[in-house]
C-alpha cells in the first residue's frame, strides 16, 4: 500500500502537443478526509471516497470506511465534487474561433437532426484539456445553427478519440424555436430595433409539418428518410428534445406544441424569461438549462443582476436546472463553468444546490443519473479534489481528477508553457 502526499505537483519533463489519456484504474483507491459535496444537496464533512475498477465503492465517514484499498490518499481537508458536466457546449468542435478551417460546429441547412456532433469532437483539442483542470470532466457536445441543429452526445474529456470519449451517443436533438420577435441586422443597414416577427406563425407551421412527418415515418420505409429516422427517438422517449427558447411566449408555445406532437422528453435551453412560465415548467416537469450568468441584461431597465438571479428563481420553484455554455468564446469559457455556478450561488442558490447545477441535475437531464452526477457507491468514479471551494476562482485549485477511476492529467499545453517560460524568466 502506497501513501501519497497530495500537495506535490507533478511537472512533466517533456513538452508535448496533448496530454496523454490516463490508463484504466488498476488499483483500488481510498481518499480520506475530504469534504464530500455529494452533488444531490448533501455534504459530508471528513468523508472518505473509495473506488475500484472505475466505480465508486464507498462514500461516507472516513472513520467508517472499509479497509483493503490498494492505495490510500490523505486529502488534507480538500473538497471532493462529482465531475462537473458542461451542457450545450461545442467543446472539440472548434479549435480557434476566427480560423474557419478549425470550425466544425454549424452545418449548412435548416433541418438537420441526423447531423451528429460526436464524430467531429476533437478529443485532442487543446481547449478541451484546458477545461479539465477546473473540474469540468464531462460535456454534452451539441452542434449549432439552423432550426434543428442536429444531435448532441455526452463525452468524457480524457480520451484518445471521440469513440473512446463517448458516454452517450446522440442522446438529444436541438431545436431552435422560432423567435416571435425580430431584429434587423444593423450591419446590413436594417433597422435593429426589436419588432414582431411577421413570419413567426409560418415558421412554427413548418416545424409542425416536419414533426408530423417525422412521427409518421417508419424505419422500414423505402426510401428511408435519414433525418426523420434520426427523429424517431423523440417519440418513444429514447431521445430528448432540447428546445432553445428565451421569451415567455416562445417557451409556452414550444412546450405546448411539442407535447401535442408527441415529443416525450422536453428540455428547455436558454430561457431568459423562464420565470414567466414557472407553473407550466413545473406542471410538466420540464428541466431548464439556463445561460451563463456572465451576460448583460436584455434591457437598460432590467435589474442589473437579472442574469445572476435567474438561477435562484428557477431553483426555488423546484425546477431541475443546469447551466449551458452557448455564447461568446464559449469553448474557452467552458473552464469558467464552475464560477457560473458560484455566481448563481452568490445571488441566492443555496451552495449545495449550486453544485447540483453542474452535477446531479445535468446527469438527470442527460438520463445518466444512475452513472454520474453524484458521489455515491455504484456510480462511475468521475470526480475531483479541490484545495478549496471549487465554485470560487480563488480556491478552485485541483489536485486530483478521476474519470472512471482513471487519474487524469491536470496539465495542459498552457501549464507547459507556464512552466517553460517561468524557467526562462527566472
Amino acid at each position, binding site marked *: 500500500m502506497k501513501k501519497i502526499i497530495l500537495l506535490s505537483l507533478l511537472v512533466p519533463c517533456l513538452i508535448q502537443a496533448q496530454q496523454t489519456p490516463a490508463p484504466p484504474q488498476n488499483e483500488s483507491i481510498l481518499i480520506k478526509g475530504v469534504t464530500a459535496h455529494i452533488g444531490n444537496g448533501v455534504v459530508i464533512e471528513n468523508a472518505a471516497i473509495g473506488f475500484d475498477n472505475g466505480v465508486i465503492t464507498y462514500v461516507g465517514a472516513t472513520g467508517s470506511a472499509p479497509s483493503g484499498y490498494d492505495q490510500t490518499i490523505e486529502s488534507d481537508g480538500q473538497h471532493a465534487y462529482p465531475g462537473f458536466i458542461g451542457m450545450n457546449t461545442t467543446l472539440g468542435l472548434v479549435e480557434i474561433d476566427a480560423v474557419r478551417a478549425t470550425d466544425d460546429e454549424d452545418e449548412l441547412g435548416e433541418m438537420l437532426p441526423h447531423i451528429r456532433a460526436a464524430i467531429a469532437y476533437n478529443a485532442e483539442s487543446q481547449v478541451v484539456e484546458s477545461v479539465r483542470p477546473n473540474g469540468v470532466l464531462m460535456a454534452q457536445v451539441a452542434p449549432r445553427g439552423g432550426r434543428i441543429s442536429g444531435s448532441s452526445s455526452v463525452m468524457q474529456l480524457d480520451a484518445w478519440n471521440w469513440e473512446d470519449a463517448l458516454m452517450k451517443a446522440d442522446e438529444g436533438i436541438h431545436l431552435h424555436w422560432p423567435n416571435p*420577435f425580430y431584429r434587423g441586422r444593423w450591419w446590413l443597414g436594417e433597422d435593429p430595433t426589436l419588432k414582431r416577427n411577421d413570419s413567426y406563425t409560418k415558421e412554427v407551421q413548418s416545424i409542425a409539418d416536419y414533426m408530423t412527418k417525422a412521427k409518421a415515418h417508419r424505419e422500414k420505409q423505402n426510401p428511408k428518410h435519414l433525418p426523420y429516422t434520426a427523429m424517431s427517438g423523440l417519440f418513444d422517449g429514447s431521445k430528448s428534445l432540447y428546445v432553445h427558447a428565451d421569451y415567455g411566449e416562445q417557451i409556452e408555445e414550444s412546450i405546448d406544441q411539442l407535447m401535442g406532437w408527441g415529443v416525450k422528453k422536453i428540455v428547455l435551453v436558454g430561457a431568459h424569461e423562464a420565470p414567466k412560465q414557472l407553473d407550466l415548467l413545473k406542471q410538466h416537469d420540464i428541466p431548464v438549462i439556463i445561460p451563463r450568468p456572465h451576460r448583460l441584461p436584455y434591457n437598460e431597465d432590467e435589474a442589473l443582476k437579472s442574469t445572476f438571479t435567474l438561477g435562484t428563481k428557477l431553483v426555488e420553484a423546484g425546477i431541475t436546472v443546469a447551466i449551458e455554455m452557448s455564447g461568446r468564446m464559449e469553448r474557452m469559457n467552458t473552464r469558467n463553468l464552475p464560477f457560473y455556478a458560484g455566481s448563481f450561488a452568490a445571488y441566492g442558490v443555496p451552495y449545495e444546490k449550486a453544485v447540483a447545477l453542474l452535477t446531479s441535475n445535468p446527469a438527470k437531464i442527460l438520463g445518466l443519473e444512475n452513472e454520474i452526477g453524484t458521489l455515491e457507491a455504484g456510480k462511475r468514479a468521475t470526480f475531483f479534489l479541490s484545495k478549496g471551494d471549487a465554485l470560487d476562482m480563488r480556491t478552485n485549485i485541483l489536485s486530483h481528477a478521476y474519470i472512471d477511476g482513471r487519474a487524469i492529467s491536470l496539465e495542459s499545453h498552457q501549464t507547459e508553457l507556464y512552466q517553460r517560460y517561468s524557467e526562462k524568466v527566472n
Partner: protein
Amino acid sequence: MKNYLLGVFLMMSLSVVGQTYYPTNLGTKTKESHFQAFTELTLHPQPGETIENGTLLIRDGKVVAAGSQVKIPENSVVRSLPGQHVYASFIDLYTSFGIDEIDPKTTRGRSTQYKANQEGGYWNDHILGDYQAISDYSYNEKEAKIYREAGFGIVNTHREDGIHRGTGVLVALTDEKSENDRILLSQSAAYYSFSKSKQSNQSYPSSVMGAMALHRQVYHDANWYRTGNSPTKDLDLEAVLNQRSLPKIFEANNKLNVLRAAKVSTDLKENWIIKASGQEFEHLNSLKSYGNSLILPLNFPKPYDVSDPALLEKITLGQMRDWNQAPTNPAKVAAAKIPFAITMDGADSPDTFIENLRRAVAYGLSEKQALASLTTVPAKLIGQSESLGIIKPKAWANFIITSGPFFELDSKILDHYVKGNRHRINDAKQLDLDGTYTLQLDTHALELELENSTQEEEIELTVMEGEVEWENTIKYEDGQLNITLSNAEGLSAILEAKVKQPGMLKGTGIGFVGDPIQWNASLKEEENKERFLVFKPATTSYPNNGFGFKKRPQQVRILFKNATVWTNEVEGVLSNADVLIGNGKIIAVGTNLSDTTATVIDATGKHITSGIIDEHSHIAASSINEGGHNSSAEVTIEDVVDPDDIDIYRNLAGGVTTIQILHGSANPIGGRSAIIKLKWGETAENMLFPNADPFIKFALGENVKQSNWGSYNRFPQTRMGVEQVFVDYFQRAKEYGTEWTQYNQLSARQKRYTTQPRYDIEMETLWEILRGDRFISCHSYVQSEINMLMKVAERFGIRINTFTHILEGYKVADKMATHGAAGSTFSDWWAYKYEVKDAIPYNGAIMHRAGVNVAFNSDDSEMSRRLNQEAAKAIKYGGISEEDAWKFVTLNPAKMLHLDDRIGSLKAGKHADLVLWTDHPMSVYTKAEKTLVDGIVYYDAERAKTQLEKIAEEKKELIAQMVQAANNGMTTQAPMNPQKREFHCETLD
C-alpha cells in the same frame, strides 16, 4: 435652376410687375401699380405685438404700411377681413426644398475604398465645400404648397449630402412669376454635418469622431491655404474660405451629436447654427455654455401602441419618456434662453407640424417665442431681419391670414401671401362643422352627426332618429351645405344652408310633405374638440433613463467603521479598520477614527477597497474605431463619450470607478483615449478625469492586418508592414516637429518671409508622443510584434507605456521589464483567434514576477463589471498573493495611467474612489454594496433595488397615458426595443 417658360407669365392674374428690363412681345409693356389693402384685421406685425382692427397695405410684393391708422390710397384693391388675423410668414432654415435626393451609391467593391473619387478638391469625397445648391435647385410647386400650408413662406434649402455640404439657397415660395422673384439669396448659408456623402464609398471617416477630426482639419487647412502656401489648387478649400462670412448651419440630429457639434463649433469659433434633435432639454446647461443657436424640429415621437404586452415590456422607460417629454423641449430650451428657430423637417404633414407647434405651446412654449422662432429668429440668423419674418414697411409682403388666433385649435390658415402673391390655403367659408346637431323636422327629432366637414371628399353624416338610422346624402362646398334625408317609411326631406357660423345650421328646404320649410339645427352640446391631451411630463433624470438620478448626488462625509480595509499601501490589509472621507478625498485610514460631522456606516464584516480601474474599456462611447485610415491619431474618444450608457451604472455596480476608453484596434495608429470617472449622471465633459496624462491607442497583429475580415487593399497586410507604418509615421512626425520648431523660433519679421508649415492634427499628436507628452497603450498579442514595437520606440527615443492584451507578454516579459513597458492583459482569454493560440492564464503571473507592472482589463462591457473576480484568477493561475492580485485591477492600472498619485489605493489625500464590498473583494460571492467616486455615492445596491420599483411605477403611469392617447385618436407607433451595441476592439466604427 430652370428658366421657366414664358407661359407662366401669361397665367399671372394680379400685379404684373415682372422685370422691368425684360422685353415683352406679348402685349404692351404696361405696369400695374395697384395697392392691396387688407382691413379690419387683427395684425401681428411681429411676435408680441398685436394691432386690433388694423390695416395692411402692400404693393409690388412689399409692405407699404401696417397699423391701425393706415391711409388707404384710392387705387387700392381692398379686402375687408373682419375676425381674421395676419402673421408674418414663417421661415424654415433647414430644408432641401427643390433639390432632388441623391441616389446612394450602393455598389461596393470587394474591399474598402480609401482613395477619393473627386479631383480638384479636397482629398476627402465627403468634403463638398464647393457645391452650390443653386446649381441643382428648381422650384417645386407641390413641395411649396406643403410648406405654405404649414405657414412657411420662405425656406433655406440645401443638398443634404456630405460633411461639408456647400451652400444653400434662400427661396420665397411663390408660385407666381419666376425664379428671379423667388431666389432671395443664391448663397444663403453654408451647411455641414457629421454624415458622409452618399455619392462616395470613401471609407474615411467611418465614425463620428473621425468626422469631428475632419471638420477641424479642414478648418486648419483652409487657414493654411489662405496664406497661399499650398502648392496645388483646392476648389473645396477655396469655397470654404469664401463661405466664412455666411451663416453656418450644422445638421446634428441626435442629442449627443448636437453637443459634439457645439463643441467643435466652439473650438473653431465657427458659431454654427445647429439643427438639433428634439431632446435638447436633457443637456441645457452644456448647450447654454456653448452658446450656439439651434434649429429645433417638432417631430415629436408618436405614443407606443400598448396593445401588445409582450412587446411593450421590452421598451424602456427612456423610450417612453422620449414620447412623454418631447413636447416640452421647445419650452425648456426657451426657458434656458437659448436662441432657436423651428424647422418643419421631420414632420409628416403640415397638419402634424401645426398640431405639434400648438402642442409645444400647450406644453409651455409662449406664443410669442413660438412666433419668434418661426419668423424673427430665423430671419436674424440668416441676416434678413429687415426684409423677412416681420410685417413692416419695405419688408417683403410675406404673411399668412388665419381664421382666428393662430394657436387656437380651430384656427386655420386661409391665405398665404408670398411677395404679395396670394396662395389660397383654406376656404374661409368652409367652417369646421364637426359635431352632433339636433334637428326637429315635423314630429321627428333627429340627430345629425357630422364628421370630416373640412375635407370635402370625406365628409360624413349619420342621421339617427332614436335607434333608427336615416339614409342621407351630404355635400358641403364653399360654405354651401346640401343634405337629403329619407327613412324606411318613405319620408324624405331636402335641406340647404349657407353656413355663417359654426355650431348653428339654418336654412331652407323641402319638408316631408313637399312644402318649403325653414329649418335650424343646433349643436347638441359643446363637443370637446381638443385633439391632443397635455400629459404630465415625467421628471427628467440624470441621465434621462430608468437608473438615472432625479437629483445629482452630492459629495458626502462618511466614516466607515470596522471594515477589512485593503489599502494597497505598505499597511496592507487592515482588519477592523476605519475609513473617513470628505470633500471628495480620503481624510484618514486607520483604527478608532471618529468624526462628529460624518455619517457613520457600520462596515463590520465588510471589506473596503479603492475603486477598480479598467485600463481597457469600450463602454460609454458612441464610436470606437476610426478605421478609415491606417493611422487615426487625429481622432479622440474624448469627443464621443456617451455619458448615458447604462454600462456605466452596471460597471459601478461591479466596483469600477475609473476607466480608460480606448480607441479600437482597426489600425496600427489608433485614436486618442478618454480617461473617465464613472460619475453616472454627469455630462461627458465632467466625467473626463481632470489633468490626466493623455494616451493614444496603437495596435498590432491580426486586426490591423485585417486578417479576419475581407479587406485586402489597405497597407499593412503583414506584421512586416506594421513595423514600417510606425517607422514611417514617427519619422514624418519627427520631421514635422523639426519644421515647426524651426518656424516657431523665427522672429515675427522672419515669419513674414517664411512659409508657415501646415498644421496637421495627426502629426501634432504623434509629435506629442515623440516629445514624451502623450503615452501609448498598444493592443498586442504575439511576442514578435511586441518586441518589434519596443525596438521601433527605442529607435525614436520613446517608451511604450503599456501593452494591452499582451497575451504573449510572458514570452518577452524580461524584455518588457527592461524597456519599462507595463502589461494590461486578460485573466484567461484565449483561443478566439490564431494569435491567441499560445495565450495562457499564467501570463499575468509570469510578467508580474519578471518585474512588469501588470493589470487585468476587460475590453468587454460585461466582464468589466466583475473585474474583481478576474483578479482572483491571478491567485488561481500562478499563485499571486491576494494583495498583489488585487492591485492588478486597482493600483497597477492607476500606475499605467499615471494616476497613482491620486487613485488606486486608500491613503489620506487620495480621491475618495472606493467600494464597500459585502465580502472578500475577490470572492465569487461578494457584491459591491456602495461605490463612490470623488466622495459621491454613485452606486448603492439598496437604491438600485428600489429604483426597479420606481421604474415599474413610472412605466405604468406612462403606459396609462399612452392608452389615453391612443383612445383619444393619436396615431401610435409599434413598440420597438432598440439594440444597444456592445463595442470591442474589433467593432468597426
